[in-house]
């Protein structure tokens, strides 16, 4: 084998080990390039993130089933300042509860994601367990129909992948999904309507 300055000539046949090493190096560089590209893309895209406008949301149920995540990034959130702290919360209780207790058969939420806590007679606080909430909006419908509408859906950005084209937004019948600035990522309710 002829060596010139310790390097093989350009037209020298490459050994299998050298080929594999070069291949691995190329793949590593390609992977890093893709990761860097994704990071750049995400940081560029992160100027805006997806969010749901509660005023346009039709509570259709698509948020629970259309997200690319196995468990949707859309969660029910609660505007406590708007809530009536009702004893019979129609977001918590099924329309025809046996009694006003937290027994499973009395609850509206299919995953029991709403926690009911006694405050004082006859008021109760309702909070969302986001690990259980699937974003189905069943409670949102109940709260809006009879109550103040303090329960509503929002995309939680600790879960959302911020897809370039949000899978839920493509099917949203109310056109409620829109891009919002990353420094104001939530569209919160401050009044009953």
């Amino acid at each position, binding site marked *: 084998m002829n060596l010139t300055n310790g390097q093989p000539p350009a037209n020298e046949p490459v050994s299998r080990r050298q080929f594999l090493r070069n291949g691995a190096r190329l793949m590593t560089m390609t992977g890093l390039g893709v990761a860097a590209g994704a990071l750049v893309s995400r940081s560029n895209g992160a100027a805006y993130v997806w969010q749901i406008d509660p005023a346009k949301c039709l509570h259709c*149920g698509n948020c629970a089933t259309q997200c690319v995540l196995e468990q949707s990034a859309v969660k029910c959130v609660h505007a406590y300042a708007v809530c009536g702290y*009702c004893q019979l919360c129609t977001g918590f209780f099924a329309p025809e*509860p046996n009694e006003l207790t937290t027994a499973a058969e009395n609850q509206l939420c299919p995953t029991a994601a709403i926690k009911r806590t006694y405050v004082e007679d006859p008021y109760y606080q309702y909070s969302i367990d986001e690990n*259980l909430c*699937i974003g189905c909006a069943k409670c*949102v419908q109940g709260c809006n129909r*009879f109550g103040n509408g303090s329960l509503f859906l929002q995309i939680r950005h600790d879960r959302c992948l911020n897809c370039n084209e949000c899978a839920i937004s493509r099917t949203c019948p109310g056109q409620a999904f829109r891009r919002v600035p990353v420094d104001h990522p939530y569209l919160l309710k401050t009044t009953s309507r």
Partner: protein
Amino acid sequence: MKPEFELYDRREFFGVVTKTAAVIGLVAGAKASAEEQGQGTANPFAYDISRFQKTDPKLVAYEEVNRWPIPHKEARRLAIGPNDQIYLCAGNFINCLSQTGQPGVELALAGPACCVAVARDGTIYAGLRDHIEVFDSKGAKTALWESPDPKSWLTGLAAGEKDVFAADAHKLVVLRYDRHGKILGRIGHKNAERNVPGFIVPSPFLDVIIHRDGLLRVNNPGRHRVEAYTFDGDLEGAWGKPTAAIEGFCGCCNPIAITTLADGRIVTCEKGIPRVKIYSASGEFESVVAGAESFPENAHACSDLNDCIHGGIDAAVDSEGHIYILDIVTGDVRVMKRKA
């Protein structure tokens, strides 16, 4: 200091695994269901109250015999006077109408009329938001009673022989006046010593009537019941069940209005699922005057996409037992007669 790792015991571990599996299974099932049914055609998570919006015909004891529009917009309450004349609050007016809706005396008020009551001698008590104005039977203004509180929101009035009762939805109390406007007492305010739990009124619908048994009946919408009080404020009893089913009161806060038949049975009005029903004096559900299917516009006003504050109905009973229902969404009065 909080430990970095918290070990689950076996029971907690299985609990977490079961919950997670249930959630994932539910979502997967719903996704499959949605794919089968096609996007947008059905919501597997629909809040379905359709079964409560249709009334069993066997329960409907009344039929509509007349209907007429009201003369002004923004109707609120109605009452029936000693000669079966109908007094209607709408806008800044109280209109006196015949049983067929023919207009009579019209009283112009300084602000929106919130409630009205007519004494046996024909004296008209008009409740504005924070005070009461008094008119004689010909419509001449005779007195203005001072506001009990700047934040008062009067939503119900009842006139007896010696007393006038005003339900204040904001201050959560029924005020007892003498016929000259002097406050004699406050009824229903939360008082543990008197075993009075207090009114819960999430929306401005607190009503009061004088029952033939000599007690007051007041709706307590946040507790889904009707309460009986003495004129001195002692709570004598209560009844009502929170449920969307026909025998109970639906939503966060119902009933919104009450009246009484001559034999003492109670007529109740609900919003959300708009319906008018009759209960015995002790609270047993008896029959339906008009179900939710009778008020489609009113029901739509309280759908999950609309604001229920603008919905609602009121009822009053004449000497022949006809029930007059005011639909404040459509702005008309329906006359209901018991079926033969």
